[in-house]
């Protein structure tokens, strides 16, 4: 047997290149026409005033100026979005991590439990929110019954501007079954030998959790944190289906504001400016996560490419 040394310089086979681009043609069209070009168009559109029918009028940064200085609902919308994303991201990460840790033990009927916790995620969103609206009902809802049972007074979950955001975020936590599956996959990858070694050295369960499980899980935590942050900052469905932004700006999420401005008031330029700000916010959070990731993410061995 002779070992053929690998060639350093990559030489591309022409027919291989052609096949590859052919196979990737739909993806390339998708990436350009439905992802990157529209994104650029959004930036451009945010500099115009346009109602969708008449002429487009270039107004420079006026849309942004108006958002930051004159729109009375904008800051409320911003805060609501951040509050919702904060609660639902942290809540769902902690909730799904706990469930995943429990499921990672040798317990009976694991498959059944996994299915149970995943189930909310596969239910149609609107139906889920409708169901929860009924649970949150002021007079006849389950939660208020439980509150009254324990001696409290009824709470307007969805009809008070202070409570609506956390109430909707709780639904998001309930819906986060997909995170559980990803965490579970990560937990099953934590080398058992680490735990055994630590146990022989006398580490208790708590110490092992903090010094082995958590560090080994940091790449997965990072991934889940990033993905749920990106999706939760873009929340709109609960506002669309239940609360229509209210009460006050309690559920007037930025995406909902964008939607109403663009499709109800036909201010496409103004809506695009909101989209750009949302983009910037997500970029900042993503940037912070990536910038700090080197400090807290533990990569086992040289597993990194």
């Amino acid at each position: 047997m002779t070992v053929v040394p690998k060639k350093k310089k990559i030489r591309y086979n022409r027919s291989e290149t052609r096949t590859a681009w052919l196979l990737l043609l739909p993806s390339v069209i998708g990436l350009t026409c439905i992802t990157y070009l529209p994104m650029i168009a959004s930036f451009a559109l945010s500099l115009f005033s346009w109602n969708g029918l008449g002429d487009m009028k270039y107004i420079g940064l006026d849309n942004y100026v108006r958002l930051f200085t004159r729109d009375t609902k904008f800051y409320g919308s911003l805060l609501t979005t951040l509050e919702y994303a904060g609660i639902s991201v942290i809540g769902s990460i902690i909730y799904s991590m706990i469930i995943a840790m429990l499921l990672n033990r040798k317990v009976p009927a694991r498959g059944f439990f996994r299915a149970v916790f995943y189930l909310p995620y596969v239910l149609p969103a609107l139906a889920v929110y409708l169901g929860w609206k009924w649970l949150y009902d002021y007079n006849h809802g389950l939660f208020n019954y439980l509150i009254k049972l324990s001696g409290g007074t009824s709470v307007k979950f969805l009809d008070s501007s202070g409570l609506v955001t956390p109430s909707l975020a709780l639904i998001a936590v309930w819906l986060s079954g997909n995170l559980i599956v990803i965490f579970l996959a990560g937990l099953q990858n934590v080398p058992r030998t680490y735990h055994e070694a630590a146990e022989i050295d006398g580490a208790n369960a708590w110490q092992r959790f903090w010094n082995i499980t958590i560090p080994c899980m940091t790449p997965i935590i990072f991934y889940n944190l990033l993905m749920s942050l990106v999706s939760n900052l873009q929340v709109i469905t609960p506002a669309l289906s239940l609360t229509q932004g209210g009460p006050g700006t309690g559920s007037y999420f930025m995406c909902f504001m964008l939607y109403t401005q663009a499709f109800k008031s036909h201010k496409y330029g103004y809506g695009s400016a909101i989209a750009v700000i949302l983009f910037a916010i997500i970029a900042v959070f993503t940037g912070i996560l990536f910038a700090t990731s080197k400090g807290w993410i533990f990569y086992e061995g040289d597993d990194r490419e």
Partner: protein
Amino acid sequence: MSIRAIKMPARGSRAASRSRRERAANILCFVLLILLALIVMFPIYWIFRSSLMSNGELYAYPPAFVPPAWRFENYPETLKSFEYLKFLGNTMTILLPAVFGAVITATMGGYAFARLRFRGKKFLFTLCVGSMLLPSMVTLIPLFIAWSKLGLVNTYWPLILPHFCGGGAFNIFLIRQFVKTVPRELDEAATIDGCGFFRILVFIIVPAIKAAMIVVGLLKFIELWNDLLQQVTYITRRERYTLALGLNIFRGSFNDDWSSIMCATCLSFIPGIIFYLIGQRYFVEGIVMTGMKN
């Protein structure tokens, strides 16, 4: 050897006490899981139980945890005013082609990224993975304008066609991870037998990654199933309403009839639950595959 011999007895007793503690911890975890599962399932049970009660029973205090009479006749009654089958048909008219397109094009893309060497691969892959982080909301307005210029608003095309364009970065990535686990020797053997890249894809790769393709299909299904925003944006004519839009309208016209609304809600749960039960096994498998490499 000698060290082991000395340590063995000590380790043995410790191991015994450890396994006892381990078993106690497992029982505790099991109990906790049952409690949490009950809490998580309770809203669904509550919705279901509400659908089997009359409005009078629903508004009674204290609320009944079990329906006093199981009124299954609520369902046929609700179906009279809730055009379930029509809405379901409309939804499937969108979902089935979209899911099909996503699975096919994601498989093509994932295979190319996993196996083929070509100029521009790194660049394209970066663009692809980068698009996972881009907020899709930002593209909403320009895309809507583009579709309305094409005169296709109020048709299903804006909801179907985009999914024939790679099926989303995440899905391409998922397929790529799976293709990478297929032994390269299979490809090479086929190449020697005279197969081109397309035939390798169809006859070797596709059978080997069927599970992943099912996962992509299911993930897409759930994604579209839940995507109220696109449906609200593009469909305004009632006869084209999907299940979600239909449910929304139904809710609007039966404002306080919670019994009927809960019936309609339960009805729209059904397809999701069925699909989930069918695909559950693949689901977990598929997510395990990608979760690790991220």
